[in-house]
C-alpha cells in the first residue's frame, strides 16, 4: 500500500523540477505516479479535514485553484501543458470540465474515487490511493454535478496514445 508520504515524496521531486526541465520531462512522458500539481476545486466548500490536508500539501507541491473562470483557465492550461500527471479534488461538474480540457493536452482521467462531502472520510487514504496507484473504488461513470454532495478525488495523466500528439496538441 502506497502511503501519502510516498505520494508527497514524488510530488516534491516534481515540484523541485519546476521550470524548463519540468516541461521537458512532461513532454517526454513522465514515469508513472510522479504528481506535478494538486488541483483544488474552489467552487465548492471542502470538508474541514480535507481542507487542512490540502494546506499541508500546498507546501509540498504546486496547487492550482479551480474556479472555472478566465483567470483560472489560463493557469490550468499551463499546468496541463506542462504536467505528466495531476491529482485533483473537485465536484463532478468541475471534473467534467477539467477532464475535457485535459483531453486537448493528451491527458486522460485514469483514476477516480468519490465520497460524500458530509461523511467524515479517509481523505488522506483516498489521496494516497489515487496518487500512488493503490486500489480505489471507482464507479464507472460520475454525475457531472455540483450539488449532489459528492467530492471526487482523481488523477489525470498524459497518455502515450496517438492523440497525445508527441508534438503537443495545443
Amino acid at each position, binding site marked *: 500500500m502506497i502511503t501519502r508520504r510516498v505520494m508527497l515524496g514524488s510530488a516534491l521531486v516534481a515540484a523541485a523540477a519546476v521550470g524548463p526541465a519540468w516541461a521537458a520531462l512532461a513532454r517526454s512522458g513522465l514515469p508513472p505516479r510522479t504528481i506535478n500539481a494538486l488541483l483544488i476545486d474552489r467552487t465548492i466548500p471542502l470538508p474541514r479535514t480535507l481542507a487542512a490536508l490540502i494546506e499541508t500539501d500546498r507546501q509540498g507541491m504546486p496547487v492550482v485553484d479551480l474556479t472555472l*473562470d478566465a483567470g483560472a*483557465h489560463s493557469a490550468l492550461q499551463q499546468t496541463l501543458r506542462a504536467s505528466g500527471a495531476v491529482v485533483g479534488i473537485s465536484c463532478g461538474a468541475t471534473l467534467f*470540465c477539467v477532464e475535457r480540457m485535459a483531453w*486537448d493536452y493528451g491527458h486522460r482521467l485514469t483514476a477516480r474515487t468519490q465520497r460524500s462531502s458530509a461523511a467524515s472520510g479517509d481523505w488522506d487514504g483516498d489521496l494516497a490511493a489515487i496518487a500512488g496507484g493503490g486500489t480505489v473504488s471507482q464507479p464507472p461513470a460520475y454525475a457531472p454535478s455540483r450539488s449532489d454532495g459528492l467530492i471526487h478525488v482523481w488523477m489525470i495523466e498524459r497518455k502515450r496514445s496517438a492523440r497525445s500528439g508527441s508534438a503537443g496538441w495545443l
Partner: protein
Amino acid sequence: MKLPPNVSHADFAAALAQFAAVVGHDWLFTSDEDLELYRDSYSVNWGEADERTASAAIAPDSAEHVVELVKIANRYRIPIYPISTGKNLGYGGAAPALAGSVVLDLKRMNRIVEIDERNGYVVVEPGVSYFDLYQYIQDRGLKLWIDCPSPGWGSVLGNALDGGVGVTLAAYRSHFDAHCGIEVVLPNGRMMRTGMGAMPGAKTWQQFKPGFGPRIDGLFKQSNYGVVTKMGFWLMPPPENIARGVVTVPQYRDIIPLVDTIGRLEQSKIVQGLWTLSSPTLGTRGDAAHDAGPPAPADPALFAILSDPAGVDMAKLQMAASATGTPFWSAEFTLYGPKRLIEAQWACIAEALEHIPGAQCKLGPVRPLPLPADELAKLFDTGPLGIPSLRTFGLGPMVSYDGEDVVGHVFFSPVIPRTGEAAIEAMDVFAAITRKYRLPGPPLQFPSAIFERAFLFAIGLPVTRSATVNAKIRAIIRELVDVSTARGWGEYRTAPAFFDLIMETYSYNDHALRDFLETIKDAVDPNGIMSPGRYAIRSGQAATKTDHL
C-alpha cells in the same frame, strides 16, 4: 475498424494513409481510445445502435491542409465532419451527424489572424476559443470586448456557425450576425472568400458585410456546404460602466404590457443590453444560465401553491402574492456605457414602464468597468461583463431522473413570438409537459429575450446512460415538437438526433426550403462528403423532387 457507410475497407485504408501523409501520423486518430473523445458526452442515443460515432479523426494545422484533405475525401467518397472546438454540448458535442464520418478536428488551427482595435474586428481560425480570444486581448491591453456564450471553451467561429448566442449588447449577441467575412474550403476543395474578401487585396473584408452581388454568408450557418477556415467578427469597445436596473410589476398578466413596452424600447435601441424576466413570486429567475441560481420563494404560503402536483393555480398564486405584497414579475436590465447615457436610458425605460399600474423602477449603482477581481470571483457568470467562464456547468442539480444518474442535457429550443400572450401560452404548455413527465426544473420556466425580436425557450432535458430513459426523453422531445409546431413555434437549433424531426416541421409548400437546400447541396457537393445529414441536408435527395423547381 469502423467504416464510413458505403466505403470499402481498402478505400478507407487508402484514404487514411493519404490523410496521414498530409497532416502527419500523429494527427490521424483511429484507435477506440482516441475516438471515444469524439463521442457526444450528452448523447441521447449513448451506446445504442444509432449513436453517431466517428470512424476516424484528423487534425489539420492549416487551410492548405484542409484543401488537401477535402480532395482526398472526394476521391474516396469519405464523409467528413468538420468541428472547431467540438464543445457543442446539448446540441451534439463533437460527434458527427452521420455515423462513420471522419471528424475533421480543427482545434489546432487556433491562430488569431488579425485583430484591429481601431475598427473593432478580429479574424480567427476555427480553434480559437472565447477564452483564447479574451486572453489575447487582455495580454495586449487592447480596448476590445467580446460577447461570449455561457461556456467559454467553445470556438468563436464554431459557435457562430451553429447559430450560437451571447449575453451582452443586441448587436453582438447573435454571433453569426456579428460576423463579417468568411473563408471556406468548398466540398470540391476550392477555397472561397465571401463579401469583400472575394476581391484580392481588399482592404475592407471585415468592414462591409454585403460585398458585391448576392450575400451568401448565410448559407454557411447550420449547413454543410464547406469547411470554414477563417471568419471575421465585429467586436465592441469596452463600455465605461455597467448598471443593473429592475422594474417590478404586480400582476401575472402584467407580462403583456411589460413585454410590449420593452419591445418598443428595444426596437428604438434604447434597451440594448440583455434583459431578463424573473418572478419574485415564483422565486424563479429567467436566463438562469447567465445569472445567479433561483432564490427560494419569498413566502411559505406561496410555496404550498407552487408545489401543487396538479399544477400552479395562477389565480390563487396571484391572490397570495398580492396579499404578501410580492410583485409577480421583475425585468432586470443590464445597461452599458457612459454614466450619462445609462442614466438617460434608464429615465426612458422608467418613464415608459411606469404606465403599468403598480410598476416600481429602480436603477442600481452605475459601476465603472472593469469590476474588481474579488467581485468578479463572486459572480456566478461573468458573460455579461464580456468575460468567458465555465461556471454554467455548476448550475442545476444534474442529479437523477427516473432513477438514473443525469449525465447532461439535450436542448429543446423553440422560438416564441415576443408577446406576453405567447409567453403565457408557452409557459403553460411547457409546464404541463414538465409536470406530466416529472422533469427537473422550476414550476414555470421563463422565456429568454436573447434574440432581438422573438423569445427563446431553451429547455434542457435530462440525458442519462440508460437507453430506456433516453428513449423516453426522445419521445418527450417529439411531443414538445408536436405541440410547438401546432402553435407555429419552430426550433432555432437542435442536436443531430433531431435534425430530421425539426427540418420536417419547416415544410412550407411541400418542403420548398429543404428541396432548395438539397439542390444547392447536389451542386456544390455531388459526392455528399461534407457533413452529410447536418441540419437534415443531404446530397442526392433533390433529383426526385425537380418537378417542384
